[in-house]
């Protein structure tokens, strides 16, 4: 059972306190988007073996959404950070580069 630190309230939360929300940092496509771009927004998700950015909600705690950088194979957590950002913060990127030198980097 995963243990993730909620950056809002600071609690190390058990997975049972959390609700998973899928891939993080999606860009919302809407009216005016081409079919292909909109389809990608609705359905196309990364499913990597390794580094993944994802959304979690501290549903049975403070109720806030946050984001986590996690390895989908080893379940190592590189860090959690507030949801109000369009890309991973520098500190997370640095931690990732150090721990996963072959990580392709933030696209």
């Amino acid at each position: 059972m995963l243990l993730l630190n909620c950056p809002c309230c600071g609690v190390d939360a058990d997975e049972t306190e959390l609700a998973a929300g899928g891939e993080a940092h999606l860009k919302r496509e809407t009216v005016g988007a081409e079919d292909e771009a909109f389809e990608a927004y609705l359905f196309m998700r990364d499913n990597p073996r390794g580094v993944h950015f994802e959304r979690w909600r501290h549903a049975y705690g403070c109720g806030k959404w946050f984001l986590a950088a996690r390895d989908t194979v080893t379940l190592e957590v590189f860090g959690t950070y507030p949801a109000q950002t369009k890309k991973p913060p520098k500190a997370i990127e640095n931690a990732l580069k150090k721990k996963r030198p072959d990580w392709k980097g933030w696209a």
Partner: protein
Amino acid sequence: MGMSTRLATGGRLLNRARAVEFNFNGKRLTGYEGDTLASALLANNQVLVGRSFKYHRPRGIVASGAEEPNALVNLGKGGRFEPNQRATTTELFEGLSATSQNHWPSLEYDVGVLNNYVARLLPAGFYYKTFMAPRAAWKHVFEPIIRQSAGLGKAPKDRDADRYEHFHAHVDILIVGGGIAGLQAARTAAASGARVLLVEQTANWGGRAPADGSVVDGIAAEEWITKAVEDLEKMDNVHLRTRCMGAGVYDHGYALAYERVADHLPANGQPRHRLWRIRARQIVTATGAIERPLSFAGNDIPGVMLASAVRDYVANFGVSPGDRTVVVTNNDDAYRTAIALKEAGLDVPAILDARPEATGPLARRARDLGIRVEPGKGIAKVIGGKRVTSVKICAQSGEGAALEEIPCEAVAMSGGWSPVVHLWSHCGGKLTWDETNAHFRPDPDRAPTNQDGEGFVKTAGAASGEVSTANCLKDADAAGRAAAKAAGFKPEPGDAATAEAEEVQPMLPVWVMPQGAGIAKRMKMWLDYQNDVKVSDVQLAAREGFESVEHAKRYTTLGMATDQGKLSNINGLAVLSQSLNSEIPKVGTTTFRPPYTPISMGSIGGEARGELFQPVRQTPIHDWHQANGAYFEPVGHWRRPYCYRRDGESTEQAVQREVKNTRQALGLLDASTLGKIIVRGPDAGRFLDMLYTNMMSNLAVGKCRYGLMCSENGFLIDDGVVARLDDDTWLCHTTTGGADRIHGWMEDWLQCEWWDWQVYTANVTEQFAQIAVVGPNARKLLEKLGGMDVSKEALPFMQWADGTIGGFSTRVFRISFSGELSYEIAVPAGQGRAFWDALVAGGEEFGLMAYGTECLHILRAEKGFIMIGDETDGTIIPQDLGLDWAISKKKDDYLGKRAQARSHMTDPNRWKLVGLETLDGAVIPDGAYAVGEGRNANGQRNTIGRITSSYYSPTLDRGIAMGLVDHGPNRMGEVIEFPTLGAGSQPIRARIVDPVFYDKAGEKQNV
């Protein structure tokens, strides 16, 4: 002569001063306090304890602990009946009642044993092969026979009489296993100041060391153990638990332990089992090792036991397995059993050692005691039916020609030891093959990793693959030290316990005995006692191409069922690898999955059963409903009255009465469960414009508007009436089941997408009771109670107002889900019941009756109002339901807008909502499909529509329905057919009509 019996002396775990009476298969037997059921059965010469799964062969006790595959019994009676309980791990208690399993009519005479004589016809993969046979043969011949004989034990019939609970524990270091390694690791770890939890699955500390005669720190292991436990008990940072098994290790240091609190003290008021949910920084597994059987012909005959188990029964329980025990081994350890038997005054006719020579110190000691040691020898065949009577011995290197027959009552076998690696492996710890000891042991360089990418499991003692007492203690100290350090503590420079180094002659891997055994022998060599898997079965699987160990397992059933192959796995995969001409580490092991041994379903559920299974939500008016004949239905976690049955009424009659009364006089509905979400802030209007398909920002203060919410896929997810409370504040009503989901949906968008918008949301569903006063007399009642102007002029349809009614502070919404004159009135939840009572009392003269959810459904269906979950199923867009009027054309964007422009959503062939009126007035079954011309590729008739809601309408006295029909709105007046199920049944014919069946102009609600 030859019985297994209680010895006059010995038995370190027994309290001979206290006899305990118990019952096995109806026989009254006696044991002692401290016995397990298995040791007490053996002491009463009850060696035969069950029948095997497939061939129903007689089965005896093989082991002395959790690894036991055979001695599974039905335990207890009635509400405390439980099948498949291991006799070896069941502590004896006064009045214990057990029966053996898998036999008919009796344990001694079982007709299923016929399977044994047709074993050649039941090879590995029998079931799979039989599926391929003519279908009729399976259905009429094999399946009935298999059903009759299959299954381990019987399912309980009564409700579980016990209670169970969960514990949550947070510790620095969890240590699993209370043998000398676990105790030493705990001492070392605790000395650093870390919070330590040490759990031991049996009732006794110390593990194997006392029975093995180990010496620790110069004193007998037993003494050292007592002192170590005393020392640990004094420490505030240490918790100790016996009868508590480490069941599983999971991600990020999570672990489950299973405490059998009261199995040995039934019905004493304590919870029977307790599931520990543990979060540990570090876990040390000191889980010991399990001895492996040897594969020789007849190794499943009762009386053939593990050498270590024989030693346990003698040393721990003072039980002799028989006067004469032949020991057969490939390693030094089994000599300890021979020596223990001899010292207990029993006969050991021979030690058959598969190794070409026996030169170790234990062999020397055995010889000194006068025991005949036969190196290079093995067992050609065990003779006996329900009990061993003799063994034929042979050269291990040959094909099994018998050299001699030795009469005996028991055989003690040892094929070497396998570390218990289960907990290490559960969360991804990797294993390495140890050539010296022929076992898989944990690879410390590939430990399971935690959230920081660091290893969080260490192993200690025999679980690491250590063999000698000295090395076990050293390893345990190192594990305790490493765990403390990894958990952030500074281990003290230690004074770890020590033991003298032992000289050991290396073991010799022996997978088949004798090595050149022919097929007749291999068909009698059991690998898996519980599932009747033999050496020949695994070899057959390999020949038939099941080369992966996971496939071979499933094909042969090796290592399945309750013991999960604790004895059979390594032997089985060794045979498989030999058959494949591959090396054992290349073949690998099957996956180890938690729990280590089966845990009760009750413990998993914990307190969550009966009334505590799920929270039940009740409105403030619930008690009134209950007192007035409410027939409740669950709506989400809520309980809502479906209808209120009066004397002698059926549910249908009650519903019809409620509908008619509401249409003709006055109805009262408890609508408190309706979701109520406050949305407030400078950007609230803009936010709601994104959330709803229609415009909410331009809703005037004091007014209400019906709105639809869609997902980003464009599908309808909720609907409800929105009221604007003031410039900055809107109140959004959601469906009963949707309140929490929609509130979460709002928060998701506000927190993750539009976080710079200034909006605040609050789910106030439970803060208000809401009561719908519905029907032609609604206004009369409110005017009678008095307080605020509820006239059409002061409070027109689709407006709301605050005010007092009958002295209650209320907010009144003029909204209608019934098509009648209707006021939905909210009061603070604490006033809900009093206000309801005031309405009921005042309404009597106007014919007031409460109505339930079914009446609500019929009223709305008569009006053609959609219901989320009936007309929608997650694939329906508002346009399908003719709700285009509720979709703003002015807005640039709303959630779902872009999706509703996708080609499939704008397809003119999407089925659309219509009303359906049966020609003969019948009610169409809900969910029925309409059929059209032609057939599809599967030869089925093409479907052209389906029913989404269907009711008998008391108002119209006929069946009415709503449904989605291909080009439905363009086919008004057309008649379509709904086939019904059942022989000779006629299709129901229905005319496509407008979905609004009642008061099409909407005059009644707007008065």
